[in-house]
């Protein structure tokens, strides 16, 4: 997907012609069309990324700057990290971030391991009841989380796990959607390689670990990214299950910050930047795999 692959250098000497921009079929794109496309792209860019930049700008503005000025000033006059220190003084934002990280990390591990195992069992192993097992995951995928949170809450209470991070992780720890994604990935592998291993006497466990799993890394990466983002972003469930402020995750902590210090926008802005920066960084690093994985597997279902 890199830019270099797509822009073919002109065959004629550069001096003779302008650099030609061609589409994926090698056809030339006219200049006016290109200009129109870039104009539209920049407008959408301003609309999608602008709000984040405005938030960043607000978080960097010092106490003496007018953040409500009209017309608005986009660049902070005297950029300062003071607000970030103040957030940490007001709420234990780094503890909350650590809690979110724990929850998201656990969610990645359980989802990758659990859905790979179950997906393999659904796709590659033969046993009575396989159809029923598949049906369980399909049905579970159809149940809307919003409709069962109250019952999940009482289930957690019966298990004594309310107000714990384990309680936050458990309901989404092995997503039915992820199991079915992994099942599809395993099904698309050719049988021959595994058959050879089977003849050589490899157990199901060995075939899974050494042959099948390394071949579905792409889908596994998508599951990992979705699991991380899902857990890091989740709001409704932690809001219901956590009541002790010392155990809040970042999303709940931010909502609390907003509720308590609604007037202090610089503070809230700094908090949101802390919450969103790691995700944007993570996504920027992984976007290549992400777009490829989503394009190939997830949408076709």
């Amino acid at each position: 997907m890199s830019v270099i692959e797509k822009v073919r250098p002109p065959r004629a000497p550069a001096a003779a012609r302008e650099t030609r921009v061609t589409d994926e079929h090698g056809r030339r794109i006219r200049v006016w069309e290109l200009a129109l496309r870039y104009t539209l792209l920049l407008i959408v860019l301003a609309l999608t990324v602008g709000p984040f930049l405005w938030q960043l700008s607000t978080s960097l503005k010092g106490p003496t700057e007018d953040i409500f000025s009209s017309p608005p000033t986009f660049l902070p006059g005297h950029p300062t990290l003071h607000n970030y220190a103040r957030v940490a003084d007001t709420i234990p934002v780094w503890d909350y971030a650590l809690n979110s990280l724990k929850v998201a990390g656990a969610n990645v591990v359980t989802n990758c391991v659990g859905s790979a195992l179950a997906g393999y069992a659904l796709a590659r192993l033969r046993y009575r009841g396989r159809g029923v097992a598949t049906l369980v995951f399909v049905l579970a995928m159809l149940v809307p989380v919003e409709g069962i949170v109250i019952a999940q809450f009482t289930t957690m209470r019966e298990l004594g796990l309310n107000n714990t991070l384990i309680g936050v992780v458990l309901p989404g720890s092995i997503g039915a959607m992820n199991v079915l994604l992994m099942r599809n990935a395993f099904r698309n592998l050719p049988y021959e390689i595994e058959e050879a291993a089977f003849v050589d006497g490899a157990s199901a466990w060995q075939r899974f670990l050494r042959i099948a799993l390394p071949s579905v890394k792409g889908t596994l990466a998508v599951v990992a990214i979705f699991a991380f983002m899902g857990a890091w972003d989740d709001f409704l469930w932690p809001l219901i299950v956590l009541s002790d402020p010392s155990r809040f995750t970042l999303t709940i902590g931010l909502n609390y910050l907003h509720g308590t210090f609604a007037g202090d926008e610089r503070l809230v802005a700094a908090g949101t930047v802390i919450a969103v920066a790691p995700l944007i960084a993570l996504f920027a690093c992984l976007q290549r795999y992400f777009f490829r994985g989503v394009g190939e597997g997830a949408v076709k279902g």
Partner: protein
Amino acid sequence: MADLTARSRVRRQLPTSPWLFAAPGLLVTGAFVLYPFLSTLHNSLTDRRTLIPGRFVGLANFRELLHDDMFWTGLRNSSLYVLGVVPALVVLPLLLALLVQKNIPGITFFRSAFYTPVVASIVVVGLIWVWLLDERGLVNSLLETLGIGRVGFLSDQWLLLLSAMAVTVWKGLGYYMIIYLAALANVPRELHEAAAVDGAGPVRRFLNVTVPAVRSTMVLVAALSSVAAFKVFSEVYLMAGPSGGPAGEDTTLVMLVQRTGTGLTGRLGYASALSVVVFAVTVVLMLLVLCADRRDGT
């Protein structure tokens, strides 16, 4: 290799049941999805509260719903949300996908950048927009600079709901854009060329070639976005506050579930009945979209 064979001899003697592979997944799904689902159905027929076990009351909760003004407000808002959000989320991401489809220099950057709102937490997004739409916020500063004057996006009941819808659309654009991108990649190029030879301009080609080719994806997007829109919680909760804006007029159904079902005085039975309504409506929405698809298709 010698190591592998030696170990495999040991391993082969252990019975590796396929069920062991599926067990963790089945256990989690059973305990935290299917069991809660069944217990929601069961609880909806009881008067269970947070600290009181509750007894069977039949359909009393559902009868009470019919006379509960808050329920109708929630149902109205959640339904309006579907009507407002779904058309925008079916059309706009498709246009966006067409815009980023062509591989011009730097397009990878734009694709990733347009996806940023999807990546950001809903809480972050909510708080950013609360700040932007505040009485003294950026949008109002710009409006004032343009001479239009300030607008109470977050204080008026309907403007608030509309603003929340706009935020939902804003956050969803990138997500559905990716789905459309995958669909557009499968549209045969020959169709476009044939249409172009027949003298069809870009708009005609879009309507007569692109739209029919991605129709099934549009249905998928309609189904996904309508179900998600009906279950809206976070956007409205963050922008209107836990109590649902002025006089609770912006409460959605899921907000009502959260409010009635939690806390020491939580009415679990009643909240479960509300949940059953949420579940039933999402099923109906799915069926409606799928039926509409079938009727158009034949």
